[in-house]
């Protein structure tokens, strides 16, 4: 060492966050130009686990693509498979029995709770609190066990079929789901008492990471990110599909636009999902789970079809361009985190790096779903 190192006051340096970094929850890389601890400019680099599901969708027949959809988002896979079957049912004009739709709604909502639970644990862990993750995983495990008994898999479900379901639910599932609701309500109170009021937690999130409603619109952000910016938008309400109009539930909206608002939206959403599950179990009609004449070979008439669903992360859209054959001509997946993440570069400018990482956590990223 020969004397102190002199740094010009306007000197910046480049920092690579990722692609192997625990804060990014997957192989995401953000190239940040830093001025001390402040971010001058950020550029997100994607594509580390790009698998080209859209080309697979063109090369395979419609039923063969079914398992692909659950490989997009490993935390809330049922929502994505739901979008896919709805899109193909719309294109091919397949009727779905009511019981199947109800079971779809119940399982999707349970999966949404599981996804939010894992996000909750991981998010608080990002901020330095390890214990909530253990509680959250325990509750999530309960859901995964329930879903495993019905669907046959724990994460990458292939449960829905064009026209219905692969397997009917049994009494054990219904009993387990009924027992789960009060248990989860108790847990939600526990999480609230444990985390929401914590002073360190609040100092890291309150008034930090602002994402305004106008920014959401310009970038196409949906889901809890938009609802945390005061936008009352939920595809289940705004563009109802499946049996969601039958359920009485609210869409939590917070107007603070900060990271804490996005946290609160997700925590409230779990309660609303519980309400849907509760009503679904109550109303669950008897009957078949597949239509009598389910087509074996699916050949939608030529045309362009779009279907949007609300997944745990936001509005997921599927576009199917059919040319009348058994393979799709074009199979487009519009993933919600892709749009939600695209605003990060602009939103984090001028923030401190630790605040930016807290904001990144509040976006609820699942990288395979961005890269597809």
């Amino acid at each position, binding site marked *: 060492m020969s004397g102190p190192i002199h740094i010009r006051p306007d000197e910046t340096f480049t920092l690579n966050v990722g692609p192997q970094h625990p804060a990014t929850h997957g192989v995401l890389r953000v190239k940040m130009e830093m001025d001390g601890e402040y971010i001058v400019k950020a550029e997100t680099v*994607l*594509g580390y686990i*790009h698998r*080209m599901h*859209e*080309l697979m969708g*063109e090369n395979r027949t419609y039923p063969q693509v079914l398992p692909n959809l659950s490989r997009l988002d490993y935390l809330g896979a049922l929502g994505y498979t739901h979008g896919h079957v709805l*899109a193909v049912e*719309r294109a091919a004009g397949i009727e779905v029995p009511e019981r199947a739709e109800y079971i779809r709604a119940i399982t999707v909502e349970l999966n949404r709770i599981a996804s939010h639970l894992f996000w909750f644990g991981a998010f608080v862990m990002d901020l330095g609190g390890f214990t909530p993750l253990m509680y959250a995983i325990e509750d999530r495990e309960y859901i995964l066990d329930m879903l495993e008994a019905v669907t046959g898999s724990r994460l990458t479900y292939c449960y829905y079929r064009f026209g219905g379901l692969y397997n009917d639910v049994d009494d054990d599932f219904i009993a387990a789901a009924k027992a789960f609701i009060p248990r989860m309500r108790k847990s939600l109170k526990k999480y609230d008492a444990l985390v929401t009021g914590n002073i360190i937690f609040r100092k890291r999130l309150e008034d930090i990471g602002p994402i305004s409603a106008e920014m*959401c*619109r*310009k*970038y*196409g*952000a949906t889901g809890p990110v*938009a609802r945390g910016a005061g*936008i*009352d*938008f939920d595809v289940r*309400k*705004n*563009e109802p599909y499946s049996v969601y109009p039958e359920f009485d539930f609210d869409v939590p909206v917070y107007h603070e636009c900060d990271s804490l608002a996005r946290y609160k939206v997700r925590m409230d959403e779990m309660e609303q999902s519980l309400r849907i599950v509760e009503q679904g179990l109550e109303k669950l009609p008897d009957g078949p789970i597949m239509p009598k004449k389910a087509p074996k070979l699916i050949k939608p008439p030529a*045309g*362009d*079809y*779009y*279907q*949007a669903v609300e997944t745990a992360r936001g*509005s997921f*859209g599927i*576009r199917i*361009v059919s040319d009348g054959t058994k393979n799709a*001509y*074009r199979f*487009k997946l*519009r993933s919600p985190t*892709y*749009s939600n993440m*695209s*605003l990060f570069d*602009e939103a984090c400018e001028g923030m401190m790096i630790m605040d930016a990482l807290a904001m990144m956590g509040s976006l609820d990223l699942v990288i395979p779903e961005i*890269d*597809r």
Partner: protein
Amino acid sequence: MIKDTVKQALRDLFPEPEPVVEAPAVEAAEGEEEKKPAKKKEGPRVNGVIERNHAEHGYDIDVQCDPGELLAVVMILDKAGFFLESITGVDWIKENQLESVYDFSRYDFDTCRVVIRTRTSRSEPKIPTISKIYPGAGWHERETHDFFGIKFDGHPHLVPLLLPEDADFHPLLKDFKP
């Protein structure tokens, strides 16, 4: 109804309804300039606005325009408070054309989904960027450039996003051989 407002604004842009043969016999084809007849005709679709059945297709208004008119159409939607859902492409290899498809929707209970299509030649695909109006289009256009090779004129940073940074292939073109 936002649907009517948008339709009205778009009609100013596409003033002349297509000379539809069967339309006059049917009741006022005002908002649905070329609904059924255009579909039955086997020829390529002409520019204009088609109203679609939401239950059947999943969107309400279907606009086709030239790449040159794209910015004007997008600006109408921006003014009406639409958000950008996605941008993608379709390779119509038989017609030797590439299509770029834009999905727009609104944060509203007055549901209205708008699809804009614009076609460009396959040999030299060029479409103006809309990232100046919707910055979120930046990533979507880069992705479409990755997969189809469509050049978005004026895009500030048109480098591969999902594909490797040195990728010189476009996997969703129908004549792509891995």
